[in-house]
């Protein structure tokens, strides 16, 4: 490729900083072509991903897909609202044209004969897949350090974690390598990375988005959702991927409203007026970094100033959430990951010995430490004599947490929490302390256990380290639209108060190839 001229360079940097909604408008008016937009993002990936390592695979067919959209648009075809916008895809989602590894060596080079439903819907909507993003192996982790392909770095500080498991998708969006990304959230894997990277992430109501083609971690907790820089962008992507899928038995048949419309309504209206916002009395202040708590309180104050009412609610069983989660997740995961046995697909490390030996050796070599730890833990939780005390009890805690939510939502419209206890910690800081790592998900886990939707939007920077902080809102099941309205309303106020998006405050990445 020839060296870009100064004006072209400026155009590229303009394109990549556009929100998906703004980019879509320029694509629709043909001010920018999809090929230009896609090329701009591919250039950005080439320039910065050596430092960020958000991508495991860049789509060689991206420009062809973009050209196809441009051709169809030129032919007058009625394309959807986001046609031609580039999209990054978490590697947990299977794709026919790119490898899908779920961050694991055991699936290196795996090519799926089918697309995940969300990927198929994204393609049908004209979104242009840019590539597959890095993640903790099989989505087990909160830092993306457990990827078999090396960690992703936080664009705000390359020595820090981008969150996890979907650190790749969040970092890609935060580093302007993609305007939109898909993530998956089992215990916070969309919302916690959003929190530490200054981006927006939504975990939809369980069943709101198809799990078909999402490599399962914990089937009863997993949800696919959008990772973006604005609430409206998340709504646009959610509108594309959401809705009933007969291939997923747990998929809801509800007729969903437009989440993009909900976001637009929130941004312009006065939805905060009279809104009852619950804050959880039992959430311990200890364990929360001062800057996180400070940013959270400041955001609440902004809402209060707009007429929101802050109501203290009780959720006495949330403190059992992490424990229940670390029983249910490993139990389901130990079963879901049994299919990686060197017979039908994936790694086989040796060709001699009995099939039992080959399987056991392959699984030992192919899985990383965290995955093995959780498989062994889950095997234990389900094994004879322990089931009732562990897995069975954890499922009861789910019931109790659902009751806490039911009682809370009888009194408030949304619940607000900090999205995670700390800002981005340093790479390697917690890697040897699994228990500390697990506690990172304390505020995000209850939503997965109860199936309710949650959103994390940037609330500001922590005073002590200048790193991004997110605020999480939770709504009753099926009330995802409420999160878009409330999230977009607060986002508009905060962006105004900052004089621009929070990501404008992020350091410029050294643009090297």
């Amino acid at each position, binding site marked *: 490729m020839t060296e870009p001229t100064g004006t072209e360079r400026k155009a590229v940097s303009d394109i990549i900083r556009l929100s998906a909604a703004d980019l879509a408008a320029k694509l629709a008016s043909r001010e920018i072509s999809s090929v230009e937009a896609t090329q701009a993002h591919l250039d950005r990936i080439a320039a910065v991903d050596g430092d960020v390592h958000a991508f495991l695979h860049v789509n060689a067919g991206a420009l062809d897909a973009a050209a196809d959209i441009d051709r169809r648009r030129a032919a007058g075809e009625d394309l959807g609202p986001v046609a031609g916008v580039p999209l990054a895809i978490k590697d947990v989602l299977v794709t026919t044209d790119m490898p899908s590894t779920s961050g694991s060596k055991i699936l290196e080079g795996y*090519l799926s004969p089918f697309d995940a439903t969300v990927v198929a819907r994204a393609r049908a909507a004209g979104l242009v897949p840019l590539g597959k993003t890095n993640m903790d192996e099989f989505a087990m982790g909160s830092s993306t350090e457990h990827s078999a392909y090396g960690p992703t770095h936080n664009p705000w500080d390359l020595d820090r974690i981008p969150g996890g498991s979907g650190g790749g998708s969040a970092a890609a969006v935060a580093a302007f390598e993609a305007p939109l990304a898909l993530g998956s959230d089992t215990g916070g894997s969309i919302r916690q990375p959003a929190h530490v990277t200054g981006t927006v992430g939504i975990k939809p109501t369980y069943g709101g988005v198809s799990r078909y083609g999402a490599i399962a971690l914990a089937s009863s907790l997993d949800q696919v959702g959008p990772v973006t820089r604005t609430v409206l962008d998340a709504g646009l992507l959610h509108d594309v991927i959401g809705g009933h899928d007969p291939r997923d038995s*747990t998929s809801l048949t509800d007729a969903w409203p437009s989440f993009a419309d909900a976001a637009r309504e929130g941004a312009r209206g006065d939805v905060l007026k009279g809104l009852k916002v619950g804050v959880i009395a039992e959430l311990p202040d200890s364990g929360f970094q001062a800057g996180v708590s400070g940013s959270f309180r400041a955001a609440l104050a902004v809402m209060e100033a707009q007429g929101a009412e802050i109501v203290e609610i009780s959720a006495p069983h949330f403190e059992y959430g992490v424990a229940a989660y670390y029983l249910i997740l490993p139990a389901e995961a130990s079963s879901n990951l049994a299919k990686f046995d060197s017979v039908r697909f994936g790694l086989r490390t040796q060709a001699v010995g009995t099939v039992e030996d080959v399987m056991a050796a392959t699984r030992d070599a192919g899985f990383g430490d965290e995955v093995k730890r959780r498989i*062994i833990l889950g095997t234990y939780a389900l094994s004879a004599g322990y089931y009732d005390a562990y897995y069975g009890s954890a499922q009861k805690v789910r019931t109790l947490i659902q009751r806490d939510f039911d009682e809370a939502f009888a009194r408030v419209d949304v619940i607000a929490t900090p999205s995670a206890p700390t800002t981005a910690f340093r790479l390697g800081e917690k890697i040897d302390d699994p228990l500390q790592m697990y506690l990172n998900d304390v505020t995000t886990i209850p939503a997965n256990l109860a199936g309710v939707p949650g959103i994390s939007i940037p609330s500001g920077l922590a005073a002590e380290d200048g790193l991004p902080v997110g605020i999480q809102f939770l709504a009753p099941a099926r009330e995802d639209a409420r999160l878009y309205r409330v999230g977009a309303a607060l986002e508009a106020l905060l962006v105004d108060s900052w004089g621009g998006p929070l990501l404008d405050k992020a350091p410029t990445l050294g643009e090297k190839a």
Partner: protein
Amino acid sequence: MSEITPDLVRHLGVLARIQLSDDEVQRLTGQLDAIVDNIAKVSQVATPDVIATSHPIPLQNVCRADVVGETLTQAQALQNAPDAADGRFRVTAILGEEQ
């Protein structure tokens, strides 16, 4: 304290078909012990009157009609196979028996 012992971890490794080295067994024993001590508290509130929730959003009778749909070709089925012969997946000798 929980009852995690190296022998138990080794046995779990057999059930989970992971060939754990002695080092791994030692390390996992300590880590699991700490984790289990922490998560065992679920039984404190899981009283008999509480019913278990296995699906966060209750649904029932989700079925499909008995109508033939798309299938994979043999080439697609085998495309990721570590080893195959005669249109089938090939594995080394099997020690255990059918269940």
